């Protein structure tokens, strides 16, 4: 089953092959977790969102239309679950001291490649305005094409492009101010 396209795994899962569905999950769980983590900003909540997402996918797999990309459907569900989770959550007090310490630790390390740096990268993406954040998440983090991201977000492809462009530029500025990653300004 290695390297089988998503559409094949989906068909096999619909036919009752549990291993095919498990393969599908393992292929996309990290991306879904990453997207969720960026939105909900908590590892525990991201796990819940990822679980809710894949359970929803499993329960409604029979309704999935193969004319669309599986990743489009998957990440649309993931974003919706993540924002639902945010809306349900009681806001927690911000710990600026803790965040500052974590930032200092991150700068001592290779910006990209460590868990902590990854966490701060996702936090920086999470600071973007929602429209830019969702576009960057789907295109750059989840790896969706522009058209698929547009379908998932319900907006025009040209709008996705401009939002991703703006989101990337803003992200670079945020990272630059934190000393994380390279920044042009």
């Amino acid at each position, binding site marked *: 089953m290695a390297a089988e396209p998503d559409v094949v795994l989906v068909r096999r899962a619909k036919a009752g092959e549990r291993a095919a569905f498990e393969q599908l999950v393992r292929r996309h769980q990290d991306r879904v977790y990453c997207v969720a983590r960026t939105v909900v900003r908590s590892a525990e909540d991201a796990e819940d969102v*990822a679980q809710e997402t894949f359970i929803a996918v499993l329960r409604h797999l029979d309704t999935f239309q193969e004319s669309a990309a599986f990743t489009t459907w998957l990440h649309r569900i993931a974003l919706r679950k993540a924002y639902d989770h945010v809306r349900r959550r009681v806001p927690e007090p911000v710990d600026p001291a803790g965040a500052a310490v974590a930032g200092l630790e991150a700068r001592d390390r290779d910006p*990209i490649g460590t868990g902590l740096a990854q*966490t701060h990268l996702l936090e920086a993406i999470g600071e973007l305005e929602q429209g830019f954040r969702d576009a960057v998440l789907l295109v750059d983090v989840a790896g969706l094409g522009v058209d698929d991201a547009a379908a998932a977000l319900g907006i025009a492809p040209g709008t996705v492009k401009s939002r991703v*462009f703006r989101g990337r530029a803003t*992200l670079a500025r945020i990272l630059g101010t934190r000393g994380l*990653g*390279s*920044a*042009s*300004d």
Partner: protein
Amino acid sequence: MTPPDPTHPPEDALFDLVEGSLDAARARSIEQHLAACDECSTLVESARAGATAARGADLSMPADASHRLHLALADTWDELHATSRPLPAAPAHTTRRWSRRLVPALAFALLATIAGTSILAVDERPGGGRDAEEEVTQREDADVSTGTSADLLQPERSRDLATNEKSARSGAESGAAGTASPAVAPQEDGGGPVSAEAPGGPGGPPPAPPGTGDHAGSPGGVTATTPSTTQPGPDEAEPVPEPDPDPETCVLTFGQYRLVLPDGSVPDRVIDGPLGMFIVCG
């Protein structure tokens, strides 16, 4: 929203430029503009850096979280596919078919009996320290099918135990120790029996619902009678408060249900027993 500056390339075109998906002619035109426009060139450089950073986001799901995810999905898969699984063929042997129908019925009856007996296992606790976990109410037209303590079981209506417990406690301590109505069994420690039947049995005067304070019963004990009763029977020495507006008796249910006493008092403690049944104890 300000209209885009016509001298600057649109952002979707700049996106295509960063992605390298512009046609050659268009790309050259934009590059020429960037060479002369610091604002756009800075923006494009920032976008390139942001793209590099965002594409580097690769936070893997923790192993334990992944494990839990797959366990949850396995359960869901089993649930979904178990419901669609065809029922096994009925055995040809008639006696076994007959047994298949009878055994569940007998099991249910046995469980009902056990539940009824368990409810009666009430220890009389000295003092007023009731630790009622379930609201105790009573059905007005007590559906006393068995006339046993199983009649005490009623579907739980609310979990407002604090309020009911407080009221029940005050009521339980105010009355004399009650004794059983005819449809009760003695408590495990010989304390006051428990009965869900309204004083006087079906159709008798309604019991005191929790919160009214007019509860009878030994302190800490479970009683089945009206506030002033010391013996079973329909005779009531005191006026009976309005019955619980939701009088419904359930002999046995799985899950939450309430122990109902005629006087509305709350048993000392109601805990979950095997198979979801409540066991009342002191």
